[in-house]
C-alpha cells in the first residue's frame, strides 16, 4: 500500500509543475524586494563603490522603481549579468526588471518575448582608439583588431559596418567591460567599440584618459531602455510610469529637494497629479498615490540622476545631447501623466 501512496505522491508532484508567474507586481510586493538586473560593472551606469554599495545611472532607476512599488529605494537586490546572460536572467524570473544598457530592438521585443518600457538613454555605437595610433576616422580602421562584447547589438552593427565599408578586421570577443579594459589597455586590440556612453565611462577609469579618443563616427542608433517579461501588463504599466514620472518631474521642475514642498503646495495641476495630490493615478497602476513622490525623493528626477552619475561634472563627463528634454532641444519626451 506504501508503494501506491508513493506513486500518487509522485504523480501529484508532476502535476504541480512550476509555471513562470505572470503576477510580478504581487510577487515583488509580497517578497518586499525588487530583483533588478544590471551590468556586472560599468562605471557611471551600474557599479559597486569602495564600500560595496551599488551606484550609477541604471542603479538609480532600479531604486526609484523600488521606492515607488515598495516604499523604500533600498529594497533592491541587484542581479549582475553579462551581455549574454541578461535576457535569460529576466525570462527565467531571476530578476523582475532589466536596467542594463540594453538596446531596444524589434527582435528582442517580439522574439525574445520582452516588453520594453521606454528609453532612458539615447545612445549610439562609437569607437575608442589610442591617440598614439594617429587614427582620426573609423574609415581608417581597415585590418584593425577590435574588442567587442559578445551577445550585444554592437557586435552585429560592427560586422555590418565593416562589411558595408569593405574593410576587414579581427574581432576579439570579450564578455565583460572589465575584460575589454584589460585587452584594450594591453594592446590585444587596437579599438574598443560599444555604446558611446559606455566608451566614455570606461575611459574615465583609465590611468590617463587623455591618451584615448572617441572617433567621430557613430555607426548606429542605440536606444537603451528597461525591459520586463512579456505578458505581464500590470507590472509593465507600473514600472513604465515610474520611468515616465521621473522624466516628467524634470520637465515640471520637481526635484528631490523640493518634492515635499511641491506636494504640500502644488504650483499647477500637472505637478499635483504627478505627486498624487490630485486624482488616483498611482492606484491605476496598482500602487498608491505617493508612488512618484517617493521615487523622486529617493533618487531625484531624470536630470538629477543624469548629472549625479554621468553628467558633465562627473569623471565620465557626458553631455545631455539627445538626452536633453524635448523642451531643451533633445528628444527626451515622456507621455503625460493624466
Amino acid at each position, binding site marked *: 500500500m506504501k*508503494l501506491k501512496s508513493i*506513486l500518487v505522491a*509522485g*504523480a501529484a*508532484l*508532476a502535476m504541480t*509543475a*512550476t*509555471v*513562470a508567474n*505572470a503576477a510580478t507586481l504581487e510577487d515583488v510586493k509580497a517578497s518586499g524586494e525588487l530583483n533588478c538586473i544590471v551590468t556586472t560593472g560599468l562605471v557611471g551606469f551600474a557599479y559597486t563603490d569602495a564600500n560595496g554599495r551599488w551606484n550609477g545611472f541604471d542603479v538609480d532607476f532600479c531604486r526609484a522603481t523600488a521606492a515607488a512599488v515598495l516604499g523604500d529605494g533600498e529594497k533592491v537586490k541587484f542581479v549582475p549579468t553579462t*551581455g*549574454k546572460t541578461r*535576457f*535569460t536572467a529576466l*525570462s527565467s524570473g531571476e530578476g523582475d526588471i532589466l536596467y542594463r544598457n540594453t538596446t531596444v530592438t524589434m*527582435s*528582442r521585443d517580439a*522574439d*525574445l*518575448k520582452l516588453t520594453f518600457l521606454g528609453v532612458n538613454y539615447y545612445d549610439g555605437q562609437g569607437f575608442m582608439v589610442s591617440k598614439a*595610433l594617429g587614427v582620426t576616422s573609423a574609415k581608417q*580602421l*581597415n*585590418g*584593425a*583588431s577590435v574588442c567587442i562584447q*559578445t*551577445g550585444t547589438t554592437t*557586435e*552585429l552593427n*560592427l*560586422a*555590418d559596418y*565593416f*562589411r558595408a565599408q569593405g574593410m576587414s*578586421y*579581427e*574581432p*576579439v*570577443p*570579450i*564578455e565583460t567591460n572589465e*575584460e575589454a579594459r*584589460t*585587452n584594450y589597455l*594591453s*594592446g*590585444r586590440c*587596437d579599438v574598443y567599440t560599444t555604446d558611446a556612453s559606455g566608451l566614455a565611462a570606461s575611459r574615465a577609469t583609465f590611468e590617463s584618459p587623455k591618451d584615448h579618443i572617441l572617433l567621430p563616427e557613430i555607426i548606429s542608433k542605440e536606444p537603451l531602455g528597461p525591459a520586463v*517579461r*512579456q*505578458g505581464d501588463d500590470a507590472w509593465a504599466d507600473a514600472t513604465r510610469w515610474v520611468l515616465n514620472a521621473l522624466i516628467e518631474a524634470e520637465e515640471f521642475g520637481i526635484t528631490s529637494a523640493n518634492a515635499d514642498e511641491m506636494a504640500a503646495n502644488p504650483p499647477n495641476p500637472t505637478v499635483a497629479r504627478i505627486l498624487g495630490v490630485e486624482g488616483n493615478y498611482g492606484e491605476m497602476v496598482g500602487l498608491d498615490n505617493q508612488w512618484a513622490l517617493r521615487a523622486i525623493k529617493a533618487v531625484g528626477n531624470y536630470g538629477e540622476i543624469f548629472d549625479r552619475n554621468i553628467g558633465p561634472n562627473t569623471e565620465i563627463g557626458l553631455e545631455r545631447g539627445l538626452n536633453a528634454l524635448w523642451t531643451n532641444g533633445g528628444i527626451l519626451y515622456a507621455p503625460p501623466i493624466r
Partner: protein
Amino acid sequence: MSVASDTDSTPQRGGIMRLWYDSEARQVIIQIFTIAVLFALVFYLVRNAVINLDAIGKSLGFDFLFQPANYDINQSFLEYDSRSSNLKAAIVGLLNTFLVAGLGIFIATIVGFVMGVLRLSKNFLMNRLVYCYVEAMRNVPVLLWILLVHGFIVVNMPGPRQALGLGESFFFSNRGINMPSPLPEPLFWATAITFILGVIGAIVFKRYAKKIQDETGKILPVLYVSFGLIVVLPVIVYFITGAPLNWETPAMQGFNFQGGYVVKPELIALTLALALYTSAFIAETVRSGILAVNYGQTEAAGALGLRNNRTLQLVVIPQAMRVIVPPLTSQYLNLTKNSSLAIAIGYMDITATLGGITLNQTGREMECMILVMAIYLCISLAVSSFMNWYNNRIKLIER
C-alpha cells in the same frame, strides 16, 4: 540465493503481497519501479520545460540555424563571413574545438609520457623537479592556468609594431605568432606524391621486415629505411624539380601583420594550459602503469640477455599500456570537455559560437544548449570508442 526455500517459509498472505516475499519477483518489482520513477522524472522535466516555454510564448524550432549569423569569427578554417548561417558558424566553432582538442591531446600525451618516465628516474634532482611540475599543474584549476597563460601573452608580449622577430619570417607579439605560409608551385605535386609513396613503402617494408624476423630471426634496419623513404627521397625529388615551393612571409601593414599564418594568443593559451594541465594527470597514469609491471619481468628480460632499452620497449611498456589506456581515455575526454573553457578568453569554439553568440542573438537557449550538449556527447563517445578499440588491441590475449 535459493528461491524455493523462501517461498516455503513465508507466512500466508493474500494476493499480490505474496510476490513481495519471492526474492526473484521482488527484484523484478524493484527494477520496474526504478524504471517507472526514472521515466516519471524525465517526463516531469520535459513537461515542465514545455509548459514554461509555452507560458512565455516561445516554441521549439531549429529554423534559426539556417538564418544569417550576422557576427564575425576571428579564426575559421572555412570560408565564413557575417552573412553565413548560424549552422555554418556552429561548424566553424566545432572545427575550432577539434583543433584545440586535437593539439591538446597530442601535446599532453607526449609531455605526459616523458614526465611519467622521468618521474621514475633514479636521478634525485630530475625526480623532484618532475614531482613539483606534476603537483603544481594538477592542483590548480585549469581555468586559472588558461587565464594565466593568456594574461601573460596579452600583457607581457610586445604589441605587433614591436614584435619580436625571428629572422624575417617569424614574429611573436601579443596578437600571437605570425609565420610564413607555403605557396606551392605546380611542380610541387611531384614531391607530395613521392612523400605519400614513401609512407606506403615504409609500411610495406615494416611488414616485410617483421615477416623476415619471424621466419629467420634476422633484424632488418626498419628505422633507417623508413627515414630514407619518407624524408630523404621527397627532399631529393623536391630539389630535382627545382624547389617548387615559395613562402609568403608576414609583413607589418597598418594595424596588424598581413600574409602568412597567424596562431592567435587565445589558441596558444588554451592549448598550452589544457595540454600541460592534462599532461600532469597522464604522467601519473604512466608512472602507475610502469610500476604495475612486476620487477621480476625486467629481471627475466635481463636474464634472457635483453639490453635496457629493449627491455623497456618489448617487455615493460606493452604490459604497462594495459594499465595506462583506460585512465588515459578519461584524461582525453576531460581535455576535450575542458576545452569549452575557451569562452573565458574568447576562443571561438562550439560553446562560444552556437552555445554563446548564436544562443544570445537568437534567444534560442533550449535548442542551442541541447545541440551543444549532443555535440559534446558525440565527440566524447567517438573518442572513447576509439580508445576502447585500441585497448582491445593491446590487451592481454588469453588462451
